């Protein structure tokens, strides 16, 4: 029974069906429960959260990643799956906390001060959530002080900064300086991205990594 439900969760992740009402990649599962409903059933029947994550959600996402790299899936497919996993992680958060299960970690993300571009940042947030990170989206045009305060209070292991303008990318350096001044720099890995920035720029301002896109971010994080 638990094997069945986990296999079905995995299948629904591959299909990108968050809830019963969602269309999948095809009609084969139409009308049947989606990841959220299945997860609730599974938790009710005491299936281990670790097993749900590793054999259902993560295993499903892995297949999705493969399908994306062979061009069978497009970005909207990938995001639908990631959103389904993200919703599942939200539901499981209290369960995991009470069971003292370690998550992949907290990831804070923000578009820096002066910049309102958020499409790329949102995609990164959805995908990382789907990859199992606890994502905190601080929004757009976020002042440096607010970022620093969040790092101080919430202690995320990772901080993602997005900037699309050559005029706002310098804000990223300002954030890193401020983290140093507040003795927080070593507590957090800083990843940057956005059309304006580059590998060289990341080195110049002392960021830990530059990510070309959201998949790159998943890869970089896996390396830590």
């Amino acid at each position: 029974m638990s094997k069945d439900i986990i296999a079905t969760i995995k299948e629904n992740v591959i299909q990108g069906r968050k809830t019963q009402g969602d269309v999948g990649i095809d009609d084969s599962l139409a009308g049947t429960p989606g990841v959220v409903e299945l997860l609730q059933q599974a938790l009710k029947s005491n299936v281990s959260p670790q097993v749900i994550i590793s054999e259902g959600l993560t295993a499903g996402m892995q297949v999705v990643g493969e399908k994306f790299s062979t061009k069978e899936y497009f970005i909207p497919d990938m995001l639908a799956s990631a959103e389904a996993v993200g919703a599942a992680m939200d539901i499981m958060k209290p369960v995991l906390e009470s069971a003292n299960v370690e998550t992949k970690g907290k990831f804070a993300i923000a578009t820096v001060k002066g910049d309102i571009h958020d499409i790329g940042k949102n995609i990164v947030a959805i995908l990382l959530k789907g990859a199992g990170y606890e994502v905190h989206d601080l929004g757009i045009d976020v002042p440096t002080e607010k970022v620093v305060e969040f790092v101080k209070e919430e202690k995320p292991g990772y901080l993602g900064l997005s900037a699309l303008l050559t005029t706002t990318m310098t804000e990223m350096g300002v954030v890193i300086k401020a983290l140093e001044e507040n003795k927080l720099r070593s507590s957090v890995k800083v990843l940057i991205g956005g059309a304006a920035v580059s590998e060289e720029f990341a080195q110049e301002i002392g960021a830990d990594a530059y990510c070309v896109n959201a998949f790159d971010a998943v890869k970089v994080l896996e390396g830590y």
Partner: protein
Amino acid sequence: MPRKGILVDRPFERLTREQAELIHQASMQILTDPGLISFNREAVDILHSHGAAVESIAGDHQSWQVKIPEQLVLKALDTAPKTVKLGARNPDNALIMHGDEPRVYLITGSETNIWLDVDFPTYVNKADPTKEIRVPEFKPRRGTIDDLCQSAHVCEHLEMVDGYIRTVNIQDRDITEENKDVNKFFASLNNNTKHFMSGLTSLKQLDNVVRMAELIAGGKKALEDNPIISFITCLVKSPLQFVDDTTETFIEVCRRGLPIVVSSSPQAGTTAPIKEAGIMAQINAEVLAGITLGQLVKPGTPVLYGSVPVRARMDTLGDSYGSVETSQYNIDCVQMARFYRIPNYSTSGVCDSKIPGQQSSIERLFSDMVVTMSGPQYLHCAFGLLDCNSVFCLLQAVLDDTHFKMIEFFLRQPRVDQPELEAMLKQIRDVVATSQKLYIGHIRPVLRSGEISGVYPFEGSGEADDVFELAHERMKELLARPVEHIDRETTARIFEEIPGILPRLNIYESGS
């Protein structure tokens, strides 16, 4: 179910209704003054017996001045069918053309002498020998019957090709004027199940090719119901002359009631006035004269209003299919045919460029788009043709197919109606209420429905332009995909009854 073609919702027209009317009137005047010169006796007799004034002209070749009165033309326009069906070996590939419906069928052709092979040799950078690139190299040679089979085969699999006019002239040593027709018909029909249209090399072969078509279609009556072949004749030589032999062929085809294109190809600047009004009045008169003759031979003969107007190149006085005016004339002709409600055979896509490349892509895409938008029923859009109709390259045909898919997509009708807008209002309200405000989640239901156009299929992976290499791969894939040949029994009967077909074309006997 016939093929769908591209239905152009609101066709693009250059002429106002009044201007079309003026061209019609001018053409009527041309047909009585100066009238036509016919080098064909029978045409003269037929027209004369129906009231055309005829006068013999002195000279080396016997010819007559024929003045065709307006009523004769109007009567012919009345009896000419407004709907023409072109059948096909596979009945699902039939083409049904209504003169007043701008549904466009896309057709290959026409015959070129030169076949262009492509190869991709590797070049090394002199300054940095570690750098290598593959560059397409095009090699021209004389076309053969094998090439014709290959081209028919690939065109069978090109989705946008609705009908086949042979693309290459067969110049094998064992092909003679006598056996050319039966071989070109057999090679094309055996490798392609779409409609086949062709000209005739020798009138003597007409009954042989009609018999071949009957055997394939399943008898005389079956061929009438499903005319898997049709003919094209350039009986007119501009300005305003009926050529002797093609007119004879034309009359014979009409007698047999098979569909036929009356085509005229004046060249603005040399054989027609360089001005739009002039070439239009003349070509319209020429085509109408042909249609009139055909309807007098056999009222109700299915005819297409065939227009291949072209502007002269100023440097060579050759045809400039790539010139912008050529498209203008073609669009005007489409409109004139629609004015008479007779299905139109139009031309686009032929380019001046000698090899596939930027020039060829731009020239052909330009005319393909604009002429398609004008809504001709039978668009000879010249898949793969280069160098003003003298070179054929299969690789180019594969590219053209891709570009026509884009045109087809572009011409789809918009879906804007109450239920659609209600669904969209809901979607907008839903998304705006979320924190991310992204519609990406709504892409999926339409992602694989065919409602979203694809990326350019020959896009390379890196910085390099890999279009030709990828299209070449595609061409090889299509060649490897089998086609439905004529069955063994019919093939045997064809070889038995029809003389002159090369034994190597018999796939059941030659072991190939």
